[in-house]
């Protein structure tokens, strides 16, 4: 299934003194099987864009198409879009409300009108995916869990709807390094199992590690688009937009400034390791030390 935004513009509170255009003439396709990263300054329109993908927000102009059909057309049942596109907001643990973890995760499936047996199956499946399947966990109150566990429970709540596309708004925000890594590994795992992923992130290192395509937003429009490697080849442009490059990129730049033959394509830690090692070994071979 293909979701596409066609010339989408969204203005908050139009015709009022507070009107603000968050995104303008955005054209974007969410391709099946891709890991799309949405990058941009706070206020660049990323969250607004994300909320159009599942039809939560309605374009002031333009259309959102699901397999070619306008999802905001009269008669279109948007519930299917809500199910097929799972949206995980920032700090999703703030939406937990039920008496037990299992009941909260069941909220989505229940809203879909599934049978009790089906709901039970989905809940167990979702909890297992996020690693909250130890005995007794499902019957605990969500408010008894640790912060990281609460977040995973919230994600399970979205996964229980079996979405094809998973949109995550800064999934690792506020987590400590290990929890961050766990969360990213979970997302990578879901991706490898066939989900299409759209991830809003401020971390260029994460984008370099996981994304197959990146879209950079600036003041409501798409400023750059392409594979992460291509985007990170333009650090000056990114800097002008107030954005960073992956940490190893800086290292590569500095080495090249010093005249060393460091390849321009270093974005990930492994690449940096290999490049530095071969630089050193190459240098040794030429009798530099």
């Amino acid at each position, binding site marked *: 299934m293909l979701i596409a935004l066609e010339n989408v513009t969204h203005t908050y509170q139009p015709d009022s003194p507070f009107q603000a255009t968050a995104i303008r003439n955005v054209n974007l396709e969410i391709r099946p099987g891709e890991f799309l990263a949405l990058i941009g300054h706070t206020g660049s329109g990323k969250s607004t864009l994300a909320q159009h993908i599942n039809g939560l927000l309605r374009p002031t102009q333009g259309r959102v198409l699901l397999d070619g059909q306008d999802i905001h057309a009269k008669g279109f049942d948007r519930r299917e879009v809500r199910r097929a596109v799972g949206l995980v907001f920032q700090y*999703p643990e*703030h*939406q937990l409300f039920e008496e037990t973890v299992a009941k909260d995760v069941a909220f989505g499936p229940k*809203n879909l009108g599934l049978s009790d047996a089906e709901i039970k199956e989905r809940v167990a499946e979702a909890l297992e995916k996020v690693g909250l399947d130890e005995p007794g966990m499902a019957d605990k109150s969500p408010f008894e869990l640790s912060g990281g566990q609460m977040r995973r429970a919230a994600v399970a709540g979205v996964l229980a709807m079996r979405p094809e596309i998973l949109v995550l708004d800064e999934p690792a925000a506020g987590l400590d390094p290990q929890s961050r890594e766990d969360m990213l590994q979970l997302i990578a795992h879901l991706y490898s199992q066939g989900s299409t992923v759209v991830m809003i992130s401020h971390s260029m290192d994460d984008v370099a590690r996981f994304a197959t395509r990146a879209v950079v937003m600036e003041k409501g429009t798409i400023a750059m688009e392409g594979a992460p490697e291509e985007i990170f080849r333009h650090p000056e442009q990114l800097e002008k937009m107030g954005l960073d490059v992956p940490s190893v990129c800086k290292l590569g730049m500095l080495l090249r400034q010093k005249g060393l033959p460091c390849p321009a394509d270093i974005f990930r830690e492994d690449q940096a390791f290999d490049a530095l090692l071969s630089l050193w070994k190459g240098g040794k071979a030429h009798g530099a030390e």
Partner: protein
Amino acid sequence: MALSNITLGQYYPADSAVHKLDPRVKIVLLIAVIVAIFLAHNLLSFVPVIVFLALSSRLSRVPLKLMLKGLKPLRFILILTFILNLFFLQGETVLLDLGFAAIKKESLLTAVHYSLRLVLLVLASSLLTLTTAPVTLTDGLERLLSPLRAVHFPAHELAMMMTIALRFIPTLLEEADKIMKAQTARGADFESGNLIARAKAMVPLLVPLFVSAFRRAGDLAMAMEARCYHGGEGRTRLRVLKCERRDYYACAAVALLIACVVLCGKVY
């Protein structure tokens, strides 16, 4: 994001003498004006009130449209009051006979009287809230009530609560918006269904909101203590309220108003 630009209450910022009046004076004078409105026995005695409010409104530089906007939510009550008084009160002089009911002179006068009273009460109160920032109002109330501290009335604590509530309303609204969106993304429906269904649908919104509000309260209390907050004892204030000449003029004007109202009542 969408809701973060709400202006709280009706406050209309402007540079006018009315805006600059001491809030304590304004609150007390509003009470006095309300008394004046109730003292008006006949339609003639409303005239000084109308003149007073019209002049104050001009002086305050608040657009008339904004002042009248405050009446909009009351239009049904006003119409109802008018009609009830018109048709269901006793009277002798019949002005118009409609067959099923007769409009009598006394009822008409009474209807106009009550409706006018309501309108003037709302306009007078609007004048206060349009020309006084919520925080200034809270300040004024706190100072006015502070003598009651002697009988253990928590004037300071109440004012603190009001200020904090005002500060957090936009923040909580934003959070409510976000929670609603998150639950809608999971298939929640806040719009359709009967009253009971919609009340139940509010649970996934209200529970997280309350949990979050309690958490904020705990955090805030700790932050306040870290900045040495320990209740109202020994606190100094950044803004000190002082009565200026214009406050005395305002008091004189209202005194004059009351005198006129009483006079008109006696004359007619």
